[in-house]
């Protein structure tokens, strides 16, 4: 990997971000109903409405509006939330860390479990365990995240009450954090009791999110492993006299890793998309919660802001996964 490749990858993000802005703009202008009607409370005169229109630039031509919109995005000005009367960017940036932490923990859970499943199913191929794991995978895929959330609440919150059901931290305790990344900050500052506390709150929503992804990871990894297993280099490893676990872990796994990593990157976006309902159910204060509130209140600037920030995160994540991919992909290195 050299700086050039890096830079080119970053440049490619520009048209993507432009496309995202365009789609957001078009979609939101398509919503029937006047965004201004939403902002009016009580009785108001046509003059008031006109004033609001001017204030939000809705009196200008559509291309002009788009230009202004682009300019605003470029300068980080995402407007003011109609409902919350606060700067959208600040609002969104405040909730992003919580969601990122949730997503990261969910990814970690699904990676660990997915890898275990796939490895076990490959190792004991043809046995009952394989069919069992395959069935679990299918069930994990068949049940939507929100139902997992409810079932988890029922299981670990009520029937076997061991884990907290809502929120991100215990509200009766006071923690002081200097960033919004509570978990990462506690980890960095080695406050392990807090880490435990945060993880306790994270584990249920993260698991609900992780289950469908886990199934996908297990599926892909398993098929990559099986594919690797019929390759000549695995034959050579067997010829070398290595025991099966060693062949699986040292020789097959590194080769099967690559497609799995790519796929995990792509599915990250679906995972973050899935946070909306899960955050709602677990009262987890993240971007999903914010988006839901924005959507049901038709808070146009907030929806716009959340979407754009989300797309931005996605582009960055994509970039990160690309880096990881080329770091792992020795074949492409020079």
């Amino acid at each position, binding site marked *: 990997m050299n700086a050039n490749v890096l830079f080119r990858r970053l440049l490619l993000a520009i048209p993507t971000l432009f496309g995202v802005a365009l789609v957001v703009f078009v979609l939101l202008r398509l919503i029937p109903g006047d965004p201004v009607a939403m902002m009016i409370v009580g009785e108001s005169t046509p003059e008031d409405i006109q004033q609001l229109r001017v204030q939000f630039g809705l009196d200008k031509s559509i291309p002009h509006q788009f230009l202004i919109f682009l300019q605003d995005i470029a300068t980080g000005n995402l407007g003011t939330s109609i409902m919350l009367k606060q700067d959208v960017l600040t609002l969104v940036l405040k909730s992003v860390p919580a969601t990122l932490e949730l997503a990261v923990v969910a990814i970690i859970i699904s990676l660990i479990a997915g890898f275990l499943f796939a490895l076990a199913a490959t190792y004991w191929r043809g046995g009952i365990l394989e069919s069992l794991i395959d069935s679990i995978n299918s069930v994990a895929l068949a049940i939507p995240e929100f139902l997992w959330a409810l079932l988890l609440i029922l299981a670990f919150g009520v029937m076997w009450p061991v884990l907290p059901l809502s929120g991100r931290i215990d509200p009766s305790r006071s923690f002081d954090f200097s960033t919004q990344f509570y978990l990462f900050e506690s980890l960095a500052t080695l406050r392990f009791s807090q880490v435990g506390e945060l993880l306790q709150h994270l584990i249920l929503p993260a698991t609900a999110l992780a289950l469908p992804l886990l199934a996908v990871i297990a599926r892909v990894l398993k098929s990559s492993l099986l594919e690797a297993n019929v390759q000549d*280099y695995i034959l*050579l490893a*067997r010829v070398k006299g290595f025991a099966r676990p060693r062949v699986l872990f040292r020789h097959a796994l590194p080769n099967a890793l690559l497609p799995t990593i790519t796929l995990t990157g792509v599915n990250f976006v679906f995972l973050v998309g899935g946070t909306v309902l899960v955050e709602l159910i677990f009262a987890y204060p993240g971007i999903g919660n914010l988006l839901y509130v924005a959507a049901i209140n038709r808070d146009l600037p907030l929806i716009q802001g959340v979407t754009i920030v989300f797309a931005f995160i996605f582009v960055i994540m994509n970039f990160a996964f690309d880096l990881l991919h080329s770091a792992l992909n020795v*074949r492409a290195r020079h």
Partner: protein
Amino acid sequence: MNTSPLLEVRNLSLSVRGPRGTRTPILRGLSLCLESQAVHGLVGESGGGKTMVGKAILGVLPDGARIDSGSIWFDGQDLTLLRPTERRRLLGRSMSMILQNPMTALNPVMRIETQITDVLQFHMGMKKKAARARALEMLEAVRIRDPERVMKQHPHQLSGGMCQRIVIAIAFACRPKLIIADEPTTALDVTVQHQILRLIRELQEQFGTSVLFVTHDLGVVAKVCDAISVIFAGTILESGTTHDVFRLPKHRYTQALLDAVPRYDRPNRLLQPISSTLHAELFDEIVNHQGVSAA
């Protein structure tokens, strides 16, 4: 000739899973005898089961393949009766294999160094440093230039000939008693082929290894093998010293094979493919009578 052969395959039958639970025979009562410290050529029709014999000896058969009967005696023990773990202990250390396609035989994500040293560390219990030294030594033995640099590289950065040599280095690393070389020079041009043949021969002589050399190229057999077996439809039609078989082939199939070899020094000789009637006859004999009549 030695009195006790290093490897003796007796009456080996092997089948693979066919459609709807049937089994397709691949090897039909195959017997093979390999003296120690010799290069033994295995030639025959393509699809005749040469690769499968090699895999059966090493016990690395593909999914669905199964030994139905017969025994494989190696160094005084019947391999087919060993438990998988015991058998695995022999692999790499006592017997090894040079796979047909060098580009795919090396693990694409591992450095060359690891691919050579891991087998040394695993079987010889060498420390990392010692293993590295031995690996360097092996790379020099297979005439790799700048072995220090190659050790750090990945397979895709090497040419086919280099990969082939590395696979050979791995096979010889633990100085095994038996190496099965499966068409190690197909798809290489003759100059590279020559280098590799010489290498195998040299290493074989240096370490006193026996080699089962699978190939189509009777020219190669003539130059490097001490003995030869001719395989057809999963049975050995004829075995003998190279000298004898080339001079006086006993089986008509062997004769036909020799007749079909093109020679650049005899441009006007007409190539004689084996007639389909002979092929059908032979096949019928083997499959229906399970016996081989010497012609």
